[in-house]
């Protein structure tokens, strides 16, 4: 068995001895300029910088252009490209097999907020440890341009007419389902995407990343919430985040406007927040709600780490499963003894 060992002779390798190429996947088959491509690139970068071993990562996705993304990063990792809207259950089962893995799920807004809303919310509620990325473009890309549930009201699409419904706010949905990590970003802001990804990877619990990711082909009207042009203008960064890996343990106690604040992640790593104008404490659920509601009423696109609670037990903390992955349990521990069956036979009366 070949566990990769750091080879100092090779340049441009990270602490587990891997180069960025080890984190790549196949070339993208998405449209040129699709927001999803940028996100895949940042996943590569984040995993490289976080020194993840690709074999310790498992990828999940639903169906859609977005859900193809796992093809384009971490080619060495296990991956399951499942069904439309039903990835959460697949991932939950898969992660029970080896809960020591890091799960990265990629979904689309149709996949998550239309067909998949139920599974999404129940996954969040269970606090499944997983980085759950919604590549949110307000449209069904792969089926060529219909409204998804995150399409803003009044949006016009070529064959569909005008959307009469208010959009589903994925961050808000996650929040009231008691998600333990919620962030929002914009595919056009690779730096923030990467930093949020790193924070999400370090989180032990469900980490929902709602990343606005424009569909250049079917949803790029000037007036659209999810298109680049709009995004760039209306985007209002909440705070800047830079991820500090565990080894370089920096703690900033002082926290005032314009300064930074650390949130200690479950694995001991920290997220450093740089506050912008507003005072914002992402550990305050109430403030998060407030902020989202305000953003909602103002039609704002607020990015950053919206909420995090690193203390909540994850799904696997709730279960009394062993530290070794369940899928490594020897057969001998799986089949009870002859004596056990004798006892059972006696009880069956």
């Amino acid at each position, binding site marked *: 068995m070949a566990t990769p060992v750091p080879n100092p002779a090779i340049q441009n390798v990270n602490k587990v001895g891997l180069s960025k190429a080890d984190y790549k996947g196949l070339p993208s088959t998405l449209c040129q300029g699709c927001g999803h491509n940028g996100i895949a690139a940042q996943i590569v970068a984040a995993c490289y910088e976080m020194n993840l071993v690709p074999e310790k990562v498992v990828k999940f996705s639903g169906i859609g252009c977005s859900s193809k993304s796992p093809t384009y990063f971490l080619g060495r990792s296990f991956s399951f490209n499942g069904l439309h809207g*039903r990835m959460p*259950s697949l991932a939950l089962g898969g992660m029970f097999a080896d809960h020591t893995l890091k799960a990265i799920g990629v979904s689309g807004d149709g996949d998550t907020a239309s067909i998949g809303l139920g599974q999404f919310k129940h996954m969040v509620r269970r606090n499944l440890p997983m980085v759950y990325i919604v590549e949110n473009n307000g449209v069904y890309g792969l089926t060529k341009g219909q409204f998804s549930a995150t399409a803003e009201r009044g949006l016009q699409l070529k064959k569909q007419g005008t959307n009469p419904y208010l959009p589903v706010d994925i961050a808000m949905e996650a929040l009231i389902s008691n998600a333990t990590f919620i962030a929002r970003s914009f595919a056009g802001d690779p730096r923030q995407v990467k930093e949020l990804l790193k924070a999400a990877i370090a989180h032990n619990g469900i980490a929902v990343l709602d990343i606005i990711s424009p569909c250049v082909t079917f949803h790029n009207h000037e007036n659209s919430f999810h298109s680049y042009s709009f995004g760039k203008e209306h985007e209002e960064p909440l705070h800047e985040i830079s991820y500090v890996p565990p080894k370089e343990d920096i703690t900033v106690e002082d926290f005032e406007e314009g300064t930074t604040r650390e949130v200690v992640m479950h694995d001991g790593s920290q997220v450093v927040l740089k506050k912008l104008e507003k005072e914002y404490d992402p550990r305050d659920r109430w403030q998060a709600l407030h902020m989202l509601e305000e953003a909602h009423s103002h039609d704002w696109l607020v990015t950053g780490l919206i909420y995090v609670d690193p203390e909540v037990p994850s799904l696997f903390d709730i279960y009394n499963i062993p530290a070794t992955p369940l899928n490594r349990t020897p057969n001998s521990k799986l089949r009870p003894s002859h004596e056990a069956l004798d006892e059972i036979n006696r009880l069956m009366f």
Partner: protein
Amino acid sequence: MSKRDLVVNDFCITFSTVNGSGSATANTTLMRALFKMGIPVSSKNIFPSNIQGLPTWYTLRLSKDGYMGRVEQDDIIVAMNPATLHKEVQYLAPGGVLLLPDDLNFVNTRDDLIIYRMPVKKLIKDAEVPPSLRDYISNMVYVGVLCFLLGIDLDLIHQALDFQFKGRQKPIDQNFHMVEAAYVWSKQNLEKKDPYLVEKMDGTDDCIMTDGNTAGALGSIFGGVQFTGWYPITPATSLAESLIEYLPKYRVDPETGKDTYAIVQSEDELAAIGMAIGAGWGGLRSMTSTSGPGLSLMSEYIGLAYYAEVPVVIWDVQRVGPSTGMPTRTAQGDLTQANFISHGDKNMIILIPGSIQECFEFGWRAFDIAERLQTPVIVLSDLDFGMNMWTSKKFEYPDQPMDRGKILWEDDMEEFMAKHGGEWGRYRDVDGDGIPWRTLPGNRHPKSGYFARGTSHNEDTGYTEDPEKWETIFKRIANKFETGKQYLPKAIADESQKATLGIIASGSADPAVQEARDLLAKQGIKTDYLRIRSLPFDTEVEDFLKKHEQLVVLDINRDGQLNQLLTMTYPVYSEKTTSLAHLDGLPLNAKWVEKQILSLLEVK
């Protein structure tokens, strides 16, 4: 009454109550006592799809010959529910016995009945039971009366209560006193006029008393189940609940104190099967349990597991469909759906246990098959097995070690690649049996990862729309099911009567068929019998079809679904085959089978 008119250990008692009235304790106590006497006994609980207040019938069949099928007529009826009394009376055999509370208003329209009236109210009053328990304990009155009438030793009742209440003295005493009081009253006041009696015998040696859902759950536990995703639905619920009950007892690792399993109650069946498939893909022995509506909801996901080649076990404890149908009635109506479930071409493995013991056996075997063939296995049980109490042969310890199929961990990978030119591909058929080798997430070998998908893929899991690559995979999968037949439970043929007439049946139709064969034999009509235990069918099925001049296929459904699939597979024998299909929600009974076959033979 002369000795030869007595009916010993061979009759049927039905308790007519309303559900939620707590009669279950009384009924199972009686059943346990009879079982302890060595009398083969089985029960059918005909209950409504509600929680409280509607008519319920619980039938105990005592059969010295070990017959377990439903019977149409009752010999004794304990009528506690005035609302249905008029109906019950119709079902009483000529000269049958009617037990009823003395305050129950009843105008007898038959002159052949033997009627005993029980002073339930009075006895319960005398017994000074706390008011909140009165209704519940009053059921013990008929237990006591029956003990007197049939000749059941009160000691056995005590043993049964002791078991029921796990030794807790108070409820044991409360209930037992009531039984005693009723017994004493009967002795003093009743004159036995009926011929029904029980006697000790040795019909339950090596036997247990249990239901199929418990058996299925325990079988799964001995099969090493590691993950269960489930959603409640009658009549499957108690299968998952038995897992919840027994897993903590038998599957906590004594070394670490940790569970070697996980159970998740999901938000619905789409999620239940999704979770189960995720876990199966991850390398866990994984299952879900459901009934018809849930199976329908699982259609899409089952197709994914089939095509991505993920092992998973799906228990479908059948009830009467279509749609919500009759949730508390039994059927074998999901067979064709199970066989053709999900869009596109596919092969499905279906196991059909034919006894409680087989519910246990297929519980563990299903995992071996699923993992060996890397495919979903659907186990078709039904409400009759799943929720009724049966006398059954003891569970047998698996006679084979667990077959985990073709799995490569880190070291295996190295070995495998050394043997195969340094290469491994998830969907390559290196052994020629159509079964590829799989790796599991968490495998640290850098070549072990692969991209599972429901989309068309080549042998190395890459997406492809290339017609030839598509066909390669697709035909290999079909081939896998051909070579895989060897792993399935074979159909069991009883050709001891060397008959020209062959009966074919499956699942819970078995007890009625067994009994009907004996009934026919008594009239000089020989029959052979083939019990199907799995699909796809294998050669032994064709052999049986070929050999017999006349064939009858029994189905507990409307359309004769087993016959439909047999016809599709072996059309040449269809001309000599008759489909006997019947669905009214009740378990099949031998008399009906006998009658159908007789009239068939007459027509011929």
